[in-house]
C-alpha cells in the first residue's frame, strides 16, 4: 500500500484486498523455484539495501527475511535491540531516521508495540515491512500460511480453518483471520474465552471452546504456540489443563478419521499444544511453512521495492 511518502509498504493484511493477496501468492510461487536452484540467487534487488530492525527476539522470521533479501541480491543489515542505541534510550523515531539516513530502501521491523510499523512510515523516508508488531499483525506469516494451504490443498476458497490457542495475544491469528476471510475461507477460533479478545467474532470468525468440535469441522488445524509466560496471568490454569482441553494429543489425533492439514507457526512446544508423535507425523508441513516463508518474503520484498520503482 503506497504511503504518504510515496513508498510502498506492507503493514497489515487488513489493508490488502483479495487480488493483492493472490498476486503475492502467485509471485511467491515463482520465487519458490529460485530456492531449488543450485545457485539460489536472482538479481532482482541488486543494489538495494534492506535493514532488519528487530526490536524483539526472533530467529526464524529474521533469518527468513535475511535469506529472502539475499536471494534477491539485496544488501542486508541486521539491527537488534541489545546492541543498539535503543538500549541507550534513543527513540524509535530517531533510530529509524538514523538508519534510513544511511541510504536504506526498506526497513523490516519486528517490534513488541502494536502499530509501530504504521508510525514508522510517518517518520522515515523508505518502505516499511511489518515483521510482527505486538498483538496486532504478522502479515508475512499469514501469507506464507495461505501459500502453504494453497499448495497442499489446491485452493483457499471454502476451506475450513480452525486456529487453536492464545488468540488474544496472537498477531499470527489476527493476520490469518483477515487473510482467510478475504480469500473466502471459513475461520473458527478454538480457545477458552479467557484467551479470546473482545468481540473477535466481528472480525469474521466463529468461536468455539471445544477442540473436538473444531476437529470434526476443519480442513486445516492451525495450532498456535502457547506462551508459557501467560500461564500465571490468570488466562488459564496450567499447561496440563491446556493440553487436556486444547492440545492435539495422540489420542485425539488417532481418533480422527479424516485428518486435517496440521500447521504451526513455530516454535512448537512438543507435549503442550501438540504431542510429539503427531508433530513428527506432520513435520513436513511445518517445515514446508518455513520454506514457504522465504518465498513469500521474497515476493513481498520484490513487490515493495522492485515492483514499483524497479
Amino acid at each position, binding site marked *: 500500500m503506497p504511503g504518504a511518502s510515496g513508498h510502498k509498504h506492507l503493514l497489515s493484511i487488513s489493508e490488502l484486498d483479495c487480488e493483492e493477496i493472490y498476486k503475492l501468492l502467485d509471485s511467491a510461487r515463482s520465487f519458490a523455484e529460485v530456492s531449488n536452484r543450485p545457485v539460489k540467487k536472482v538479481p532482482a534487488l541488486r543494489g538495494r539495501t534492506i535493514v532488519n530492525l528487530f526490536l524483539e527476539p526472533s530467529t526464524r522470521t529474521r533469518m527468513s527475511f535475511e535469506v529472502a533479501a539475499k536471494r534477491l541480491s539485496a544488501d542486508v543489515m541486521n539491527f537488534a535491540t541489545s546492541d543498539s542505541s535503543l538500549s541507550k534510550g534513543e*527513540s524509535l523515531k530517531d533510530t529509524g531516521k538514523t538508519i534510513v539516513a544511511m541510504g536504506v530502501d526498506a526497513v523490516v521491523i519486528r517490534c513488541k508495540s*502494536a*502499530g509501530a510499523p504504521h508510525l514508522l512510515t510517518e517518520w522515515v523516508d523508505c518502505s516499511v515491512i511489518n515483521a510482527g508488531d*505486538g*498483538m*496486532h499483525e504478522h502479515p508475512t506469516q499469514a501469507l506464507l500460511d495461505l501459500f502453504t494451504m494453497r499448495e497442499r490443498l489446491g485452493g483457499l476458497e471454502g476451506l475450513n480453518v480452525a486456529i487453536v490457542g492464545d488468540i488474544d495475544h496472537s498477531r499470527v491469528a489476527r493476520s490469518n483471520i483477515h487473510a482467510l476471510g478475504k480469500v473466502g475461507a471459513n475461520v473458527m477460533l478454538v480457545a477458552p474465552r479467557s484467551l479470546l*479478545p473482545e468481540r473477535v467474532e466481528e472480525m469474521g470468525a466463529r468461536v468455539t471452546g471445544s477442540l473436538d468440535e473444531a476437529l470434526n469441522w476443519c480442513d486445516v488445524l492451525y495450532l498456535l504456540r502457547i506462551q508459557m509466560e501467560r500461564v500465571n496471568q490468570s488466562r488459564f490454569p496450567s499447561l496440563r489443563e491446556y493440553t487436556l482441553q486444547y492440545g492435539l494429543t495422540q489420542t485425539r489425533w488417532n481418533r480422527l478419521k479424516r485428518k486435517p492439514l496440521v500447521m504451526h507457526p513455530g516454535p512448537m512446544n512438543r507435549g503442550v499444544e501438540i504431542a510429539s508423535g503427531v508433530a513428527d507425523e506432520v513435520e513436513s508441513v511445518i517445515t514446508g511453512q518455513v520454506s514457504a516463508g522465504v518465498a513469500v518474503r521474497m515476493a513481498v520484498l520484490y513487490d515493495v521495492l522492485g515492483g514499483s520503482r524497479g
Partner: protein
Amino acid sequence: MLTFPQGFAGEADIKVKGGLIQKIGRGLRAESYEVLDASGCIVAPGLVEMHAHLREPGMEYKEDVGSGSRAAACGGYSAVFCMPNTDPPIDNSSVAEYVFDRGEDEGLCMVLPHGAVTQGRQGKALAPMGEMGTCRAHVKGFSDDGSPVADSEIMRRAMEYARTFDALIISHSEEPSLSADGQMNEGYYSTFLGLRGIPPESERIGVFRDICLAEKTGAHLHLAHLSTAGSVELVRDAKKRGLPVTCEVATHHFSLDDSSLMGYDTNLKMNPPLRSKADVAALLEALSDGTIDVIATDHAPHAPHEKETEFDRAEFGCVGLETALGLVITKLVGEGVLSMEDAISKMTVAPARLMKMERWGYLPAVEEGLPANLVVFDPEEEWTVDPAAFKSRSRNTPYAGWSLRGRVKHTIFRGALVVKDGELTAGRDAVLSQVKTRGGNGQKQSQANR
C-alpha cells in the same frame, strides 16, 4: 449581544470600570473608553475549567502556569483548577500557595490548585486537606487524579475527612486491576489493532465504589471525566436518590470515539480512553438530561517526544483549553444536545458552584457590580484548529485541521482586556483597566480610545 446565564438575554452595552462591570444597558456613551465591537457575539462569564494539568512545578517542559494561563485566556477561561500530579505533587500548602501565586503573577486568569487526597499521591496516608483549605490557595477540591485511590478504606477515610472541611473529593474512578497495561477502550477496535484494552467496567466499578462511599460518608463526590454509559447511569441513579454526587465530562469524550484510533495516532491516546459510539451517545444524553454537571477539558499537555513514539509508550491525554468552546458549540449546541445557555452554564456557573468559588469572591455572572471576568465569543464564526497557533507549550491535540464553529474574540479578566481579537494583548502592563464592550445589530465600532 447576549448576556447570561443570569436571565438577561438580549442586546446591550457593558461598561467595565475599575475591574467591575459598572453598567449594563443600551446606548451607553463611549466616553473615553476603548470600545470593543461585540455585534453578533455572546458575552458570557469567563469560563471555568475544573480539570487541567498545568504541570508546574516539575514538568515545565510540557506546560507551566504562564503558558497554561495564556492558553486558558485564549480559550475564554477566567479560572482554571489544576490537578496536583506535579513534581513535587500539590499535597501541602506550600506547593498549593506556590501554584496559586504563580497564577496571580501571570494575571491572565485565576489558577486554583486542587490538592492531592493522599501524601505524594501514593494512596496511603491522607494529605493535609485542612491546612491546604485554609492557606492562600483555599484548596477545596482533592484528587489523586491519574493515580486513583485504589484502597477503599483510604478512600472512605478521605471522604470522611474531606467532609469535615466541607471539601470535595474529585475522583478519577477506576478499578486498576482491570485496566492494567491498557492502551485504549476494550472492544472491537482494540482487538483489531492488537492494543491492550481498558474495559468500560473498570471505570464503572470505580464509580460504583465511590458512589457507595459517598453515600456512606455523606461527602461530596465529584466524578472526573466520565466516559462510559455505565458510569453515567450510576450517577443518574445516585442523583435520583439525592446523593451528594456530581460529575464532569471531558470535551474529547463526547467529540471522539474509539474508531478514530485506527491508524495509531497517539494524540488519541487518553485515560480514560475514547470509548465506543454507544458510550458517546450515552454521554450526550447525560449532558442533555442534566446528569453531567460540568464540561471540562482534562487539558493534559505533553512534549512531542512523549507522543511521537510507539503507541504503548506514548503518554495519555491531549491539550484542551483552546478547543473546548469550539467543540462545545460545534458538537453540543450545533447538534442540539444542549442549548447555548446550558452549555455555557456547564462551563461557568456549574463548576463555580461546585467549587464554591465565592470563597475567592469569584462570581460567574454578567451583572452590574460584579468583577468583570468575561468572555466575548462569536458563536457562528468557523475556524480551523491549527496546533502551531496554540498558546499552550504543547501541541498534542487530536483536533488538528478540524473545522469548529464558535470562536473566542475577547477575554476580560478582572476588568483587564487580556485577549483581544483572539490574541493575547501585548503585555499585561499595557492592558487597559477600563473596557467597555459594546454591541448592536450590524453596528461596527472599533474605535479605540484611551
